[in-house]
């Protein structure tokens, strides 16, 4: 007597079971039969082989097609289909042929890894390589000392010549002096567009980053201490105490200036304050968004770098610019520039951009008349002769000495310390008109 459970399933039923298309009852019946029937177990194994072989053959049809319609893994394109029932046969189960690791594929992968790693390392080393290249070229070409030595100096002495990170390329002393290079025929005189290109170099960016970090530290000290200053300037002995004293003197001067203005006077303190006559127009069409007249708060003579008080800072237009020109009270170019940062309460921190000098000018919060503290000192590297305009640099280029990289680094360190030790000069900063 043969029960229903002993009937051998047909091949279609076995395939349906392997495809998980049988209902639960039929699947349970088949599985119970397979427990007892070796012949059907062999047929199941054969059917598994057919299914696997068929999938492999059909997958081969896709070889060489690269459309988005193709998806290499069947399970990935058939999320709604359960995977085939697990194999019960012993032996090694291999992955799809297309994913097998072959010697050729291993070689390709290794080459790709090496190429990517090389590219990353090369990219990582590029900035230092650029600096090294500049220094090496400078060392190999003494004639180019005026230009490339200055470039190294800018990188090494950021306080003297480098713009802040937020500033656009500044047509300041170093590029204009670096332009004419007799004896170096491949180097043409640098017009203004080349200045912008120069400022985008890695060395300038490194220098700008250093300046930014330094000015951040100094701004905190100068701006905060300026308001809590109490000690007299005469008794100050440390730079911080000097700054406090200077800020106090400046505040007093500002108060006096405000009182004068309240009485309707147009004169200021310490030499008089008046509106200057169109300084921006003096600069051959260069527009300024804001102008500030800087003068001594105590009446004592002082200089900011090479520029004597009083002077005018003309902030370049547009207002998004972070560059400023240093002008005489008459609106003439004082052969120095500055970059500035806007701090809280519209306070400003100017950094002198003049080769051979380092300097800062911290200006208090907004107002028509503001208190400020000014510092400046000669930089360790004396490059006045390369500053500001091409004709002068051309005439004086032979007098230049090219500093070594080590010397330039030492000068950079000494520049920061020199500025920190420079006396703090209290100033009054008055907003003045830029136009006629």
């Amino acid at each position, binding site marked *: 007597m043969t029960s229903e459970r002993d009937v051998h399933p*047909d*091949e*279609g*039923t*076995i*395939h*349906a079971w392997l*495809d998980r*298309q049988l209902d639960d009852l039929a699947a349970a019946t088949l599985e119970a039969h397979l427990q007892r029937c070796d012949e059907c177990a062999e047929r199941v194994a054969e*059917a598994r082989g*057919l*299914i696997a*072989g*068929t*999938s492999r*053959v*059909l997958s*081969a*049809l*896709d*070889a*060489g*097609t690269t*459309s*988005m*319609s*193709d*998806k290499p893994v*069947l399970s990935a*394109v*058939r*999320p*709604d*289909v359960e995977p085939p029932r697990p194999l019960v046969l012993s032996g090694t189960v291999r992955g799809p042929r297309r994913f097998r690791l*072959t010697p*050729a*594929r291993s070689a390709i992968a290794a080459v790709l890894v090496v190429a990517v790693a090389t590219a990353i390392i090369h990219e990582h080393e590029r900035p230092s390589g650029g600096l090294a290249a500049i220094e090496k070229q400078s060392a190999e070409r003494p004639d180019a000392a005026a230009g490339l030595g200055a470039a190294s100096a800018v990188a090494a002495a950021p306080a003297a010549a480098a713009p802040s990170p937020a500033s656009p390329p500044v047509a300041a002393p170093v590029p204009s002096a670096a332009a004419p290079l007799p004896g170096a025929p491949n180097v043409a005189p640098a017009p203004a567009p080349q200045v912008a290109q120069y400022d985008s170099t890695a060395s300038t960016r490194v220098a700008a980053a250093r300046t930014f970090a330094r000015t951040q530290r100094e701004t905190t000290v100068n701006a905060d201490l300026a308001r809590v200053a109490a000690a007299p300037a005469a008794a100050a002995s440390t730079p911080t105490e000097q700054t406090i004293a200077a800020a106090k003197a400046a505040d007093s001067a500002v108060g006096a200036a405000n009182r004068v203005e309240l009485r309707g006077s147009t004169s200021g303190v310490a030499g008089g304050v008046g509106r200057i006559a169109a300084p921006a127009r003096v600069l051959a069409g260069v527009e300024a968004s804001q102008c500030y007249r800087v003068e001594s708060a105590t009446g004592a003579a002082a200089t900011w770098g090479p520029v004597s008080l009083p002077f005018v800072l003309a902030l370049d237009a547009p207002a998004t610019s972070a560059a400023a020109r240093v002008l005489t009270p008459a609106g003439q170019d004082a052969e120095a520039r500055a970059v500035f940062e806007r701090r809280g309460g519209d306070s400003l921190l100017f950094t002198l951009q003049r080769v051979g000098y380092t300097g800062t000018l911290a200006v208090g919060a907004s107002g028509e008349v503001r208190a400020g503290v000014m510092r400046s000192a000669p930089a360790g590297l004396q490059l006045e002769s390369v500053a500001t305009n091409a004709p002068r640099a051309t005439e004086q280029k032979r007098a230049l000495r090219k500093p070594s990289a080590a010397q330039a680094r030492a000068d950079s360190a000494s520049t920061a310390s020199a500025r920190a030790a420079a006396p703090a000069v209290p100033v009054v900063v008055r907003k003045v008109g830029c136009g006629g």
Partner: protein
Amino acid sequence: MFFIMVPPDRLTALFAEYHAPLVRFLTRRLGDRDAAEEIAQETFMRAMKQETITSDRSWLFAVASNLVRDEGRRSQRQQRRLELLREQEQAEAVVEPEPTSMERDAERDLARRAVAMLGERDRDALLMREEGLDYDEIARALDLSPGSVGTTLSRARRRLMEAYESLQAKQDVRPA
């Protein structure tokens, strides 16, 4: 029988879900990607015009299969195209020294020839199953009884493997 309307957003969803498997199915079926793309596009165009679709996936594959059948009327032209492709591939294989590429091309050629040796219904059922259609969907698409799909598939699989191994054996004995 359950019917659904086919609004535009539904059609978009159908396209997003089934375009890729349908193109792959048709490419395997025809051996020509360009033709597969055209027929898939035509299939979805018909779906857009269709007011109601029952069992969307099986409907799409059934329409695509019918379009392939219509396309078969131009089989001689298609065959010539395949011959040209084969010759081109063989020519490229000569100039392409990479062994894995040659092996892959040879396998593809064998697979195409083996699939072409199947009966139309077996071939469609097999390719639809590979694209994830369940037995009910295959039955609807090919107008079969659900109970016969397993038999159809088992027969198709066996014949495909026999054809493939036969072609492979002939290739192996071919003088180098």
